[in-house]
């Protein structure tokens, strides 16, 4: 999952038709576009903690039916190019599956992922919020089964952010939940999505619109540290360098440190724009978007 969705300037479904888009949706970029930037919330709501109804298959027939439906859902989701129609069908299949069994770890996180896709790319905010809530309920169910599930924590964080994007009244709660969930992944030492937890958290914390403590958790220093950790986890992943460079530009401007700005420029040139920079396998389109963003950063910081 990697790509700067916000930077593209096309409707997501146009992108989907062009490339295998979802396979490389960037969580860091996602957070950057969420607008989780709330000093004080006007009508604060908590991210829901609902779980899906507890169901287990009663017979071999039901177990087989469950396996068949999940397989169909997985295939629909995986089919390329991914599109709204198929992902909607995939989400429906996961919903059918959950009515037979709600205790399957993989089905739950994949269901959360499919809902996450719709929560991110549908044009209608209200509909996005509905899918975000469904995905959150899958993640919460997963976390009831396995409280340290990396996938559960990751999707709970990302879906909370998407819910806040669709309905800003969830902003404060989402920021707290994202912070908590992503830190749990980080503390576990597990890696997911090329330093994804560090990258998402780092992008969130370094967002200049996010207030610092005690109002919220914004901290350019902490965000930069997390992005440095993402680079350490996955040093060849260009997106980690892209967002670290962004934080470095902010750092350089805030503290009047031109050498740090030069470091950011060198980083962008080396990992994204120079002759040696190349797209990770299967991420050519996304790499192009990162390059576009990198150029924007350079233009803004000549």
């Amino acid at each position: 999952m990697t790509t700067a969705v916000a930077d593209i300037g096309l409707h997501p479904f146009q992108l989907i038709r062009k490339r295998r888009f979802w396979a490389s949706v960037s969580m860091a970029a996602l957070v950057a576009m969420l607008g989780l930037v709330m000093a004080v919330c006007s009508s604060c709501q908590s991210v829901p903690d609902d779980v899906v109804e507890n169901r287990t298959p009663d017979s071999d027939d039901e177990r087989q039916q469950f396996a068949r439906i999940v397989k169909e859902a997985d295939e629909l989701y995986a089919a390329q190019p991914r599109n709204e129609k198929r992902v909607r069908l995939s989400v429906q299949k996961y919903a059918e599956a959950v009515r037979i069994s709600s205790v399957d770890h993989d089905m739950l996180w994949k269901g959360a992922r499919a809902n996450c896709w719709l929560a991110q790319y549908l044009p209608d905010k209200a509909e996005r919020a509905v899918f975000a809530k469904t995905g959150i309920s899958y993640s919460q169910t997963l976390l009831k089964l396995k409280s340290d599930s990396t996938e559960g924590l990751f999707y709970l964080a990302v879906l909370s952010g998407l819910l806040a994007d669709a309905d800003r009244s969830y902003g404060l709660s989402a920021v707290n939940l994202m912070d908590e969930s992503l830190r749990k992944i980080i503390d576990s030492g597990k890696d997911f999505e090329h330093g994804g937890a560090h990258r998402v958290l780092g992008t969130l914390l370094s967002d200049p619109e996010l207030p610092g403590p005690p109002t919220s958790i914004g901290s350019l220093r902490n965000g930069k540290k997390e992005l440095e950790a993402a680079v350490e986890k996955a040093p060849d992943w260009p997106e980690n360098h892209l967002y670290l460079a962004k934080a470095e530009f902010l750092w350089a401007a805030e503290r009047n440190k031109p050498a740090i700005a030069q470091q950011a420029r060198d980083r962008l040139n080396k990992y994204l724009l120079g002759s040696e920079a190349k797209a990770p396998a299967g991420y050519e389109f996304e790499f192009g978007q990162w390059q576009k963003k990198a150029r924007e950063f350079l233009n803004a910081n000549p």
Partner: protein
Amino acid sequence: MKTFSRLAIVLAALVLGFSIGKAEDKIKEFGVTVYKMGEERATDKDAGGSFDKLLAYLEKKIEGAKFPRRGIRNNADEAKKLMEDSKKPTALGIVSPNFYFRHKDALKLTVIAEAQRKGLNGEQYVLIGASKAEKYPEGKKVATNLDDADWLNKVVMPTPEGAKPIQWVNKANIFDALFSILDEEDDACDFVLVDRVTLEAVEKDRALKAMPRGLKSDMLPQDLVVEVDGRLGDKREAIQKALKGLDGDDEGKKAGEAIQVPKFMDADEARLKAAGEKFSKGAK
């Protein structure tokens, strides 16, 4: 018959118009202006919705009163302009104490309540640094999000007679200022001035909680609810009662939560007097 009908309509219209006029007469407007020093997000854009919840709560509690928001500012001069605007008069203000002491005479401000941010009674600042500030840190660089040097030098950390004043460095993010010290950055300040609510957050932070706390300010007033030029009239007591009872029902609790002030109380007169005396010494 036709004439009678017309007359009836005219009479009905008159009666109706009169009734509406009477209802409008009963509702009084009390404009509200907010000034919060050092709070980057104290703007209409960021905090307007939250304050509107408080104002809606007041309207519900106080019959015949409307509380239009005149503005929320983190800039004292702008807040003063709002309060001086005779076309859109302000009757009620929620202001930081430096603003009250500086403008109380010019704007005819009277304190009617004091905020308890996060439920804390009074504000107290502490200096945190790499080493413990045992005494007034003469000439040292101290980071703060407060932007009123008079308030800082006279009330918060009064400059001792003959001492070289602290060099105040304005920083929006107090945590990052503390981290600069911890990371031993070249341009880090020597100390950071930390308020009580931020201190609670510092104490929960793995890295920052070990930093030594040094010199503390006196216990100071928090944000003050003020009446402007006696404009609250016969609603003053009802407003005071509603504010002090903010945590008494769900709606009030939600309104308090949104602005991070779960309750208001009577202003602590002794604290107010002490701070006022310090501030007025050589006041500009």
